[in-house]
């Protein structure tokens, strides 16, 4: 009994919620399973319905139902005016989307992958991100740029880059990186309602993964605030910070490490810019150790920024060891499966790094 109780408590679950499950007087919340794809679809559907200024444009978003089926059913429901298939002209259609936002509409500009956004990056940075500042508040640009970011599976170097650091670098842009379905729905809805240009970095490998959606998340007005990280798992031994797919990897690593008595606190960044450094600092001041995990390249990456911010803030004095960054390997993405697998952080890399950081 004592052992099972200990195991239970070590798993990080909240005692109160556990007791609630055993309470027959109260019924459990009606959570459902929903894939990230469906969550994004639902977010766009709800926002298209709510505000007639919202529209979606991009390659294959309409009649093809979306290259990754994220916009499935939307063209059938909303028609040509609001779901627009574009020619293969990223720089052109991104500029058109930004112009439409300047003139009062609320476009969702989809990139088939963010690799292609590089063709349009001038419009995103110079025409969208900087305009509110340059015009001293006269001209706002309420636009969302969304699409899959980072590595997929076997798509090789030109289709696997992570742009979190590139977009996260620029003032005037908000950048979010959802992990699970609730993140996807809540952050995309917030992005669409935001008056600023927001980059939504999705992940293709997560599109088909089902996650639990709480009753609250199923509501048509469910939004997640941009700029706030979430503690996915509480712990005392060490802080793990990640965004997107690697949040899942961190939770998997945490489950394994828990068996050895190492309790990881896992932080899901949710937003890259503005980054919730305070949540990281609060956690580090509790655990005294920090490991960052990302899929992107190490140089000038998310982990690098977190290291710098921790050094500049109050949490530095609480560190018992330097911050460790777990990142993608500093190479263009290779094709062969064995090579690709070894180009990205695996759960074992996180476990190894945690132990090194804790000097175990």
């Amino acid at each position: 009994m004592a052992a099972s109780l200990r195991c239970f408590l070590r798993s990080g679950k909240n005692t109160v919620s556990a007791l609630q499950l055993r309470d027959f007087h109260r019924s459990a919340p009606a959570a459902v399973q929903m894939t990230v794809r469906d969550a994004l679809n639902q977010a766009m559907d709800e926002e298209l319905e709510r505000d007639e200024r919202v529209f979606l444009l991009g390659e294959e978003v309409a009649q093809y139902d979306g290259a990754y089926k994220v916009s499935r059913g939307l063209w059938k429901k909303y028609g040509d005016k609001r779901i627009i298939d574009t020619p293969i002209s990223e720089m052109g259609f991104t500029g058109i989307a930004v112009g439409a936002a300047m003139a009062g509409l609320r476009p969702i500009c989809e990139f088939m992958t963010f690799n292609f956004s590089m063709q349009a990056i001038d419009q995103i940075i110079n025409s969208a991100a900087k305009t509110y500042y340059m015009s001293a508040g006269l001209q706002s640009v309420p636009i969302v740029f969304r699409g899959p970011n980072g590595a997929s599976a076997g798509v090789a170097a030109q289709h696997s880059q992570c742009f979190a650091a590139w977009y996260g670098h620029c003032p005037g842009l908000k950048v979010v990186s959802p992990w699970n379905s609730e993140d996807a729905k809540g952050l995309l809805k917030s992005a669409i309602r935001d008056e600023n240009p927001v980059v939504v970095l999705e992940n293709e490998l997560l599109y088909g993964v089902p996650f639990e959606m709480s009753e609250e998340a199923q509501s048509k007005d469910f939004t997640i605030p941009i700029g706030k990280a979430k503690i996915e798992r509480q712990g005392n031994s060490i802080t793990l910070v990640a965004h997107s797919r690697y949040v899942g990897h961190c939770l998997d690593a945490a489950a394994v490490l828990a068996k050895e008595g190492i309790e990881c606190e896992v932080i899901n960044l949710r937003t890259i810019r503005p980054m919730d450094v305070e949540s990281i600092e609060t956690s580090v001041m509790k655990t005294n150790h920090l490991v960052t995990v990302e899929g992107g390249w190490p140089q000038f990456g998310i982990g690098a920024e977190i290291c710098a911010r921790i050094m500049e803030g109050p949490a530095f004095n609480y560190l018992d060891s330097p911050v460790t960054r777990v990142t993608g390997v500093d190479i263009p993405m290779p094709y062969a499966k064995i090579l690709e697998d070894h180009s990205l952080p695996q759960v074992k890399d996180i476990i190894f790094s945690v132990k090194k950081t804790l000097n175990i």
Partner: protein
Amino acid sequence: MLAIISNVLRASAQRNGAAVITSARTYADFTTQATFEIKKCDVFKLDEGPATQVVLTRDEGLQYYRTMQTMRRMELKADQLYKQKIIRGFCHLYDGQEACAVGIEASINLSDHLITAYRAHGYTYTRGGTVKEIMAELTGRRGGIAKGKGGSMHMYCKHFYGGNGIVGAQVPLGAGVALACKYQGNNELCVCLYGDGAANQGQIFETYNMAALWKLPVIFICENNRYGMGTSVERAAASTDYFKRGEFIPGLRVDGMDVLCVREATRFAADHCRSGKGPILMELQTYRYHGHSMSDPGVSYRTREEIQEVRSKSDPISMLKDRMLSNNMASVEELKEIDVEVRKEIEDAAQFATTDPEPPLEELCNHIFCDMPSLEVRGTNPWAKLKSVS
């Protein structure tokens, strides 16, 4: 006798310096309107072009004259201030091209939309900005149209989307504004300008394609002033028929030095757009007296003789003035009176622009985001925690 009276009245007018035009001749002496024969436009994929017989009223003529003269003097004052190092950075002057901005605005409404590149001071004025706020923006003061945050290339006002520094980037933006007009069904259109240099940008061809495909109400206008920075059109473009470069978009080639030509062509183009036919392309053949920018003397890639020839034979303000005087639509004194008023307006604006204080340091980080309550912004060092409000 009349001559004595007119001399007295003229003398008193000069003494007062008042804004009242006094003249021995009454308004009844002037022709209220006249018909002019203007140059025929070359057309592309069009069965007919703009009218070649146009009517100009006295009031219109005076208004165009005043506006063009204001733009001319404003740009020349900017030249002066730049040489005095009171204006810094980029400064691309529009003198010589006034007929384009004025002619375009004459045939659209303020409720229509307009976007251009960096040679934008003239358009900021025709779209509703005041000389004062334009000049104060050039000098980087808090009274500037963008509070000193934007500078020469980033001026905005209602339905005017700048002022854009990246060559060609404004063209897709303009088509996007037109998409919003069509989407909202408000019968407005967007005038989208670019230069002969920008005309070779790939994103412009992407935009032509989508604008034509979706029948967006956009008037593409190529202001061909013969030089993209220091590269003449012959050295930059395999085809210098810019009005034909839209391939499947109908085009017009217009004398951009004649405000009446520009006005008539814009009227034609606006009708085309508003009737749902989709985009149309206008090439305005024009000329800039200054170099590309203030750091370019403008004579290493073209001759002084060429500049002088255009100035003497095709100056837009002189052309309008001659038309009005030879058709008895205004008097020399009347136009001189306008010149005096314009000069004063520019002087006052320059005075403001040089004395208005610079933006306060507290506002350094403002306007990063819209609708954000106070946000913390990192300064140059970790202890510099700056504040941003919008």
